[in-house]
């Protein structure tokens, strides 16, 4: 009986072994970098990972990807530590919580460069690549106010946050509220927790709208919101203005179909590409970059206009839609921007971290 049990448990190890041998062999001469993200199966995060992979391909590095579901800081820190212990020379990571700070700073002190992306740990001694979160909230809020009729707009606006407590999202909420305050007749409810999984997200928005059927606008701060709000608007007769974030295929379709008004992108490709480029440059120069802020840029997309930010050439709505699910086409489009990333530019001191929240 015991022998049978042991046999089966060893079988589990062998199953892992089969996977292990299926893994790609590493090339020792290449620079090895890693990226750790705070979600799995999320189209926006996948666009970041695609950007990181494009950078590794362009710059001749080997990239290891680790994705942890649920924005769990402890799990992400473990993944960063595992990557470092496995011999990776630098790691790009989002920082979904302050509890990662101590552990990341210890790694940086040991001489391993770290670059943060998307979610900022303000006390981590590493550069951060992301949007100007409060400012992007202001842009979104202003777009909604303008759509509702400007300073004379009246009615209820509902705000939803899929990850209450994440500083970047809290900053967005702050920015949105600042802009909505320009119309004193608007009553802002929230932010409410609308969850990140697509199913839960839609359910929460549906309940919020059921409780406030006269709401004039519903604003989300995360990637799944626009798709949920578009679906809800389509089902209820397109009675409210929907605004939110990220240029995923679902979101762009909702806008094209006329069920959502505006979505702001935070240049997912840049948030993946730039951290890896900074890491590789630092590793080559045997440097450990200190804290600073690299603005990934803000994209503004409505059915009538597409602004991709970062001085990129104008594209049509159809091209923006095509890029959302095509990493190769995205990398080709961004080639005009990636060429500007010279070693001199990457070595230059970035803006102070405080610029992120301005």
């Amino acid at each position, binding site marked *: *009986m*015991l022998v*049978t*049990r*042991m046999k*089966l*448990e*060893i*079988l*589990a*190890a062998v*199953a*892992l*072994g089969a*996977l*292990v041998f*299926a*893994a*790609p062999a*590493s090339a020792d001469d290449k620079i090895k970098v*890693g990226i750790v993200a705070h979600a*799995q*199966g999320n189209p926006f995060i996948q666009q970041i990972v695609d950007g990181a992979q494009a950078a590794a391909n362009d710059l001749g590095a*080997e990239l*290891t*990807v*680790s*994705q942890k*579901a*649920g*924005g*769990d*800081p*402890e799990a992400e820190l*473990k*993944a960063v*530590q*595992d*990557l470092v*212990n*496995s*011999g990776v020379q630098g790691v790009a990571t989002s920082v*979904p*919580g*302050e*509890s*990662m*700070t*101590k*552990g990341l700073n210890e790694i940086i002190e040991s001489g391993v460069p770290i670059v943060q992306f998307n979610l900022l740990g303000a006390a981590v001694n590493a550069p951060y690549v992301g949007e100007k979160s409060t400012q992007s909230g202001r842009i979104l809020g202003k777009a909604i106010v303008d759509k509702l009729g400007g300073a004379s707009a009246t009615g209820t606006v509902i705000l939803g946050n899929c*990850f*209450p*407590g994440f*500083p970047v999202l*809290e900053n967005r909420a702050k920015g949105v509220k600042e802009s909505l305050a320009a119309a004193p007749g608007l009553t802002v409810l929230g932010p409410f*927790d609308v969850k990140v999984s697509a199913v839960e997200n839609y359910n929460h928005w549906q309940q919020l709208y059921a409780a406030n059927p006269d709401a004039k606008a519903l604003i989300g701060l995360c990637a799944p919101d626009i798709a949920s709000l578009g679906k809800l608007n389509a089902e209820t007769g397109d009675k409210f203005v929907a605004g939110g974030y990220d240029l995923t295929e679902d979101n762009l379709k909702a806008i094209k179909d006329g069920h959502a008004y505006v979505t702001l992108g935070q240049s997912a490709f840049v948030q993946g590409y730039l951290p890896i480029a900074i890491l590789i440059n630092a590793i080559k120069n045997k440097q450990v970059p200190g804290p600073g802020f690299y603005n990934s840029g803000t994209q503004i997309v409505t059915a009538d206009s597409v602004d991709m930010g970062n001085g990129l050439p104008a594209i049509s709505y159809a091209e923006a839609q095509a890029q959302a699910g095509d990493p190769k086409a995205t990398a080709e489009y961004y080639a005009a921007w990636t060429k500007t990333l010279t070693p001199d530019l990457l070595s230059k001191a970035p803006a102070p971290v405080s610029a992120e929240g301005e």
Partner: protein
Amino acid sequence: MSETSPPASATPATPARRFRMPDEIGVIVALVVLMIFIGVARPRFLNPLNLLTLLGHTTFLGMLAVGMVFLLAIREIDLSVGWMFNLSAVVTALLMVAGVNPWLAAFIGILFGALLGLFNGALAVILRLPAIIVTLGTYSMFQGLSLVVDNSRAVVPQDQTSSFFTFASAKIGKIMPVTGAVFLVLAIAMHYVLHRTRFGYRVQAVGSNPEAAALAGISNATVRLQTLVLMGAICGLSGALYVGFRGAIDPNEGSDFVLAVVAAVIIGGTPLSGGSGTVIGAVIGMLIIQVISSGLIFFGIDATWSTFVTGAVIVIAVSLDQLVKYQRNRRAERLKAGR
């Protein structure tokens, strides 16, 4: 209340003493095989620093797994462990922010965890409901309370000069995390409690046959209550130590702990049917989960495979548990028929 003898499954009476392999030998072998396998292909994996990092990774979840063994042994599951951990840590950190001595704050955090466990236990006993039902509700209650109390933001004690932070962050011999040592001491102590104390025997008796235990004078309600309080106190200990170790607690930390904790206990060999449990097995189970997760990173395997393999190992472990039970029952039936 009458004295309670250990259940037959806890201390099998054998006419002659003979060497018996420990029940955990299967998972120990699996862990060693896994480590050797990964280490041969990626020697850096066996670096002592990495192995001790792995132990550090196991600490906080591992503590919860130790408590969960007692619950599974009485046929219960507590779904709220992650949020008891979080809320206790938040209370600990907020007390520190308010200027309370960090050692005292940590102690209050442990007591607060026990209080949360008492709340779960009281509901389960008074309403005569399984803990899994009660904690399905308190999972969200504790989460919501935590988000209200910490205002959906990380709680970071600014003054971390206290000896509590030095202690929780220290490394014995510059490599072994003190928190890892505390975890091992807790596991050994709880192993002793489960197998060598009256409380442990009662836990196994209630899990093995609640009706028989009641006839023997054991109050099922009291044992359930005590076990849920123990679970809460362990969550409090883990949360308080976490604040000292990381220097902060985030609003969503602990949200997905429960699956890994239950998985570790089951992988370790504690049956869902109750009546017995293995603390050492749970520790090994948690180590196996961490080794798999770490090993996949060492091999640079796609991130999504990590989730798949962890799930696959759990399925194999549960299947194994069923197979062992099936074979045991068949043997018992054959013996019965042969008499």
